[in-house]
């Protein structure tokens, strides 16, 4: 991953059987990967009669944004979007605060069971959410945390803290200790070291962690459908799933919502691909 594709892939290869096969496999896989997405996109800009036309047509003629207008103005989608953004915001704030402190403690303090602690924290990320949801629901119902932004955010945060912690710890350990030691000689306390010196330096790591948390919260269905049942707290993936019941068989509008529910993630991925993939591989391999 050290060298990017664009710098290396500028020489044209000799045309051999293996090169032709390579392109063929990639193009076929790429087509299979993207076909359902393009079909949904096409459906979302068709008129109601074109949606159910037989034989099916790939290109809408003429394209119409009626379905999108319906979803944006005449459906609860904006509310679902708002809920998702609020919960993602709370989760990001919570995870970054908690994980940064923990990563700093593990990286810099002389803790007796440092590696055991780090390992235990990571191990919790392996606990399957589905095993936790039934008891968690009972507990939440008793505490009144069900159907609340905070309740949802706590669950997302608990599952994102371990990865974020590992990611941030890597960034902190890359900072030379001398920087903090010098500051401490000048009278900086441990905490001031974290807030004034380390915090600004690890910004890129925090941004990467925030993006991973955002994608996680945005894409979740399971936790949201269990813990946030009311219309007022419904998250975007659940709203999408239930929209089919609301619109009956209007696939144009349904696919418009589907496109809207995946667009932010696709845009984020396309623009920040390399950083996100590196975060993923690091998170997966550093266990």
């Amino acid at each position, binding site marked *: 991953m050290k060298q990017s594709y664009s710098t290396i892939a500028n020489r044209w290869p000799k045309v051999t059987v293996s090169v032709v096969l390579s392109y063929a496999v990639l193009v076929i896989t790429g087509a299979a990967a993207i076909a359902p997405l393009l079909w949904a996109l096409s*459906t979302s800009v068709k008129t109601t009669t074109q949606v159910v036309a037989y034989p099916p047509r790939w290109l809408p003629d003429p394209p119409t944004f009626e379905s999108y207008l319906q979803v944006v103005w005449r459906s609860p989608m904006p509310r679902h979007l708002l809920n998702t953004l609020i919960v993602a915001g709370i989760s990001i704030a919570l995870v970054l605060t908690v994980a940064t402190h923990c990563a700093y403690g593990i990286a810099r303090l002389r803790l007796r069971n440092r590696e055991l602690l780090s390992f235990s924290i990571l191990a919790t990320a*392996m606990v399957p959410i589905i095993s*936790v949801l039934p008891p968690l629901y*009972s507990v939440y119902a008793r505490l009144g945390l069900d159907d609340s932004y905070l309740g949802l955010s706590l669950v997302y945060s608990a599952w994102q803290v371990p990865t974020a912690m590992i990611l941030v710890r890597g960034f902190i350990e890359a900072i030379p200790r001398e920087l903090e030691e010098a500051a401490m000689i000048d009278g900086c306390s441990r905490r001031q070291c974290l807030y004034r010196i380390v915090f600004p330096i690890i910004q890129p790591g925090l941004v990467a962690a925030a993006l991973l948390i955002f994608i996680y919260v945005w*894409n979740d269905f399971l936790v949201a459908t269990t813990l946030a049942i009311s219309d007022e707290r419904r998250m975007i993936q659940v709203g999408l799933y239930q929209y089919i019941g609301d619109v009956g068989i209007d696939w144009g509008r349904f696919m418009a919502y589907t496109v809207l529910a995946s667009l932010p*993630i696709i845009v984020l991925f396309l623009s920040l691909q390399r950083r996100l993939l590196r975060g993923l591989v690091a998170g997966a391999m550093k266990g």
Partner: protein
Amino acid sequence: MAPRANRINVSLLSPLYYVGPTILLLLAIVAYPIAHSFYISLHKTEYLRIGGFTGLSNYLALLHDDIVQRDFIITIKYVLGSLSGAVPIGLLLAIILNQRLPGFGILRTICTLPWVISQTVSALLWIWFLNPSYGPVNYALSKLSIPTLDFRADVVLALPTLIGVNVWMSYPFAMILFLAGLQTIPEELYEAARIDGASVISEFYHITLPLIKNTMMAACVMLTLYYFTMVTLIFVFTGGGPAKLTEVLSLRIFNEAFFYWRMGTASALGVVVFVLNAVFSLIYIKVLRREAEL
């Protein structure tokens, strides 16, 4: 002595300032519910009310439940079927992409897309793509004079179709991990092999495969953990149907808890899945340790 005692106090409290919140959060949201789940599973339940202690009877009931046994077999089919699709496809694509030819950057991006979108969206995209009346797949089949297939509702096709969608959604993950693994193999090894006249196939068996074996093991275990505890894709795509033929264990937990409201059974199953998952995780850690030693 007083100042010294004071210093010890501070040094004991100071780590808590940093690691305390994380530990508290994980204890409250992960550890406590698991313990509570175990507690519930040993009791009679009615809706959310926990009744008298019943010992292991919830677990014994699972052992004698034919449907749970069938769910277990479906889960194994689902996990193994998905693995045998995603791992070879991921490996093949990674090996091809590692050649870094022109245009491969954008092809890699396109091939990664299915992994980025949510399980809900993946399921809905394929429901519409495979629609018996208006979908392009059935139209293409009709051109080949194959009668219309309702993939999701067919007792024979439902599980393979579900596995297919899961492979579509998850092969990029294997691909990305393999690509990262391949990029650690020094180019000189291949050059040396080529000078010795090795074929592409013998290069694969004698250089590539041995050197990414650990990455492959890690990817297999991670995918197994992921497939084993999946709910959303299956819930949205088939809902466990037709006739519960695609109901995997984790979907069963979901249904027991939030459809039938049998928290005792759901908790007992949840504990079983948790323990099996922990066993897989231990294997994963062992594999990673071994990889770290190499």
